């Protein structure tokens, strides 16, 4: 019996994540107990308690918020149920880390960092001189991805004085708010070179606002998003968006791999990040310190299922 406690369904990315994990577990032939917390921490706590009562064998867990899990996770540990964390790594006061089996999820600061590097190197590649005025649409303030991506991107900005963040506002990870905020930004800020949206939804919303302002998205304003969902690929192929830094929701395979391993008595590294890329129009832009380059979106659009 495998139990899976998911945050809720706040975006497409999450849906893809849920679907993938659930499908993998079911395909592996195990009984799945799934609970959707509907964005409420208390619901997740309840669900975890419930899993213990039901006597499940494994718990797969995505924490909605970083803190506040000590009690219930202690109970999980007491009940000796292996805990597999995905997507988000909560903080606890346990001192050591043997309360969970392993963690698998995106490296948010690195995603932001790659986005920043892409912007820097892209402008170098087209021979742009002088300041780069950046508008940032950040995610829901206080959420893990927002904090991580902001931090990673800021690292690049700090290292490159010509990159300037001229406008910074939260768009709460939604298309509608991304659009409304961009609409205001276009009026408040005279010159915008780059839009860095901390997820693709906000970028896709912002594209419409840019069009309405009479500018050409992807040309007048370079747009880079994050997540790399299919809709973003489509926008990149259509030339309305420039790049997106991947954050994969496909975690089911890893979950199954871990559980199978545990059954066989294997142990795992505590923290593992998936391999993620940056996709853009033409590819070939350097995105990290190791010299990895971005991939061309058009080549990969068909493998995207979410």
């Amino acid at each position, binding site marked *: 019996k495998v139990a899976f406690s998911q945050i809720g*369904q706040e975006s497409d990315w999450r849906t893809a994540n849920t679907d993938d994990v659930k499908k993998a577990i079911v395909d592996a032939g195990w009984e799945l107990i799934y609970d959707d917390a509907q964005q409420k921490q208390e619901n997740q706590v309840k669900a975890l308690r419930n899993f213990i009562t039901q006597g499940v064998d494994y718990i797969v867990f995505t924490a909605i918020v970083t803190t506040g899990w000590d009690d219930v996770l202690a109970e999980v540990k007491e009940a000796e149920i292996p805990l597999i964390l995905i997507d988000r790594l909560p903080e606890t006061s346990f001192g050591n880390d043997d309360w969970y089996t392993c963690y698998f999820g995106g490296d948010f600061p690195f995603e932001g960092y790659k986005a920043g590097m892409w912007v820097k190197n892209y402008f170098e590649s087209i021979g742009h001189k002088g300041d780069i005025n950046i508008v940032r649409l950040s995610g829901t303030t206080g959420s893990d991805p927002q904090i991580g991506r902001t931090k990673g991107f800021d690292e690049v900005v700090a290292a490159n004085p010509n990159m300037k963040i001229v406008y910074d*506002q939260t768009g709460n990870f939604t298309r509608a708010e991304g659009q409304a905020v961009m609409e205001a*930004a276009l009026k408040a800020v005279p010159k915008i070179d780059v839009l860095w949206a901390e997820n693709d939804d906000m970028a896709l919303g912002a594209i*419409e606002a840019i069009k309405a302002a*009479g500018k050409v998205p992807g040309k007048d304003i370079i747009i880079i998003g994050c997540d790399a969902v299919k809709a973003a690929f489509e926008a990149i192929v259509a030339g309305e968006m420039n790049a997106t830094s991947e954050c994969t929701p496909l975690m089911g395979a890893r979950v199954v791999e871990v559980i199978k391993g545990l059954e066989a008595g294997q142990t795992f590294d505590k923290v593992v990040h998936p391999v993620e890329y940056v996709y853009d129009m033409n590819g070939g832009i350097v995105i990290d310190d190791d010299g990895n380059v971005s991939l061309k979106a058009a080549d990969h659009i068909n493998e995207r299922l979410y």
Partner: protein
Amino acid sequence: MMRKRMKLDTERITKSKLFWAIVAELLILLVCLIIRPDFFSISYQPSSGMLYGSLIDILNRSSEITIIAMGMMLVIATAGTDLSVGSLVAVSGALALRLMRWDLDLYPTPGDWSITPLYLVIAASLGACLLMGSFNGLLVSRWNMQPIIATLILMVAGRGIAQVITGGKQMTTMFSPFKFIAHGSFLYLPMPVIITAAVILVIYLSTRRTAFGLFIESVGVNRSASRVSGLNARRIIMTVYMISGFLAGISGLIYSSRIISNDSNNAGQGYEMDAILAVVIGGGNMAGGKFNIAGTVMGSLIIRTIITFVYYFGVAAEAIMVFKAMIIAVVIILQSEPIRRMLEKRSRMRRSIQGGALHE
């Protein structure tokens, strides 16, 4: 005689809640003007064929709430509330996208096409919302359920329904007639503004140019007495919830056309509170009774102005809440009866002093 009449009129104006709502709106705008005069710049945007500027944005983006608030206003006038409107926005959008795309398992690149003709898409979305509105109405008018609880049911379940419709997916479309709903223009104005104006007009005509408005108010003030006076209170309440649902549907189409996709999770989130707020700022009484169309529109504009203000000046978005709280508190307190009476007494006193001086 003439002078007396004029005096009476100014008195009436300053006493009306609408007046204070307008004052509040102007004050916020004044602050904007002082900080950055170019907030007010409006120019013609040839590529989209409409006017372009922050003020236009306020009008444009307030449409969703204004339209919903029109329905909410009628519901509140019957001493009810409709918490389900936000979820209905999601349902309407989900259904529209589903009908246009009809491709749950595949993700073909969205293009300028639609499986279903636009009129059917619109009819189905609005029809579904109308149906859900009548479900609310049924619970409230027939079962005599308390409106907050009755509409809570669809508030919770509505989002679920929206997700079921689209299989929990967010679908994008490039179908240009559909895009036109939110991105098109007419008479140099964005379509949502036009649609909102039309809705306001229809609501005005159907409530103030027929006896419907009077009946609603009457039922809201005293249902028992209205029944004895031969009004079909049940049917009136039912109708009002249906209207509210229908308008939420329109709002949902605008919302989804804006983002050219559906968003079952976030569409219409919190709209019910904003709409109620707009109605109350506009002078509506939660206990039922008189409603004021112009005031409600004003209330909605105030709310949107605050948000635009925050976005435009790059204020931390967390402050929206505190901002909203403060501005609303000020408006509501100014509108409150004891304060108005105080102001009135004072002005009367001043006038009588002046009168005395004149006599000497």
